[in-house]
């Protein structure tokens, strides 16, 4: 099966998609992720966490390109993005 794997350069052409994980209790509501998401995927929610901050919420999940910028900017290790490889799986099958 490995034989039939799609070559990597073709894989690269695909627009990656991301699945966001927000660890709300850790978030301090700084808004860095919201401000700098190139795709406007996030916004601060109205919700309070127990420290009194508004964690972000995902408003345009389908837009997320798994660029990880929200993750690397987050000073509180409170958000990260996992790549969803749907299409690649299809090819592999």
């Amino acid at each position, binding site marked *: 099966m490995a034989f039939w794997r799609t070559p990597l350069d073709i894989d690269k052409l695909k627009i990656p998609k991301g699945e966001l994980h927000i660890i709300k209790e850790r978030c*301090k509501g700084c808004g860095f992720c919201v401000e700098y998401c190139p795709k406007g995927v996030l916004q601060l929610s109205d919700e309070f966490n127990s*420290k*009194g901050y508004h964690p972000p919420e995902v408003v345009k999940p389908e837009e997320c390109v798994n660029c990880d910028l929200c993750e690397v900017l987050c000073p509180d290790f409170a958000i990260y993005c996992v790549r969803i490889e749907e299409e690649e799986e299809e090819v592999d099958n």
Partner: protein
Amino acid sequence: MAATEIRITGLGGQGVILCGYIIGKAASIYNEQHATLTQSFGPEARGSACSAQVIVSDQRVLYPYVTAPQILVAMSNDGYKKYKDTLAAESILVYEKDLVKPEGGGDGVRMFGIPATRFAEELGRKIVLNIVMLGFFGAVTDLMPVEALRKAVETSVPAGTEELNLKAFDEGYEYGVKLLEESKAST
């Protein structure tokens, strides 16, 4: 009168320390009492929970720390939770109604809530929340003449903001007076 121990608790930025400062100043400068203010410092206080403690007394305060407050002023639920169990019997809880959810009043704790944030927002400056609380505190605790507190507010807030703050104080105070009357009426 024996010493009254007061703890004010809330979040950084809510003006918790100033609140304690004004109470202490009112008592010691404008009411001929003694008042010792202490506060929790520390990196752990960075932006999150913070608290101020005031001991008001007719004699010199010797032991400076509050251990079992007769009055707890709570501006955040976290702070309330952290300290509620230190409240002495027969004590008073003064709290911000929208931020703090008191859990029943065992041991005869008298509880007085005020939506101070809303009052403050209505005054156009959320930052005067603490002064609203203070006026309310003045009314419901009756620790000292309200004029002492007002004087202390006037001389402690940034120059130029006296009027706004006194207004905030008065609104809190009036709300407190009304509440007291109502509760008297209802008992």
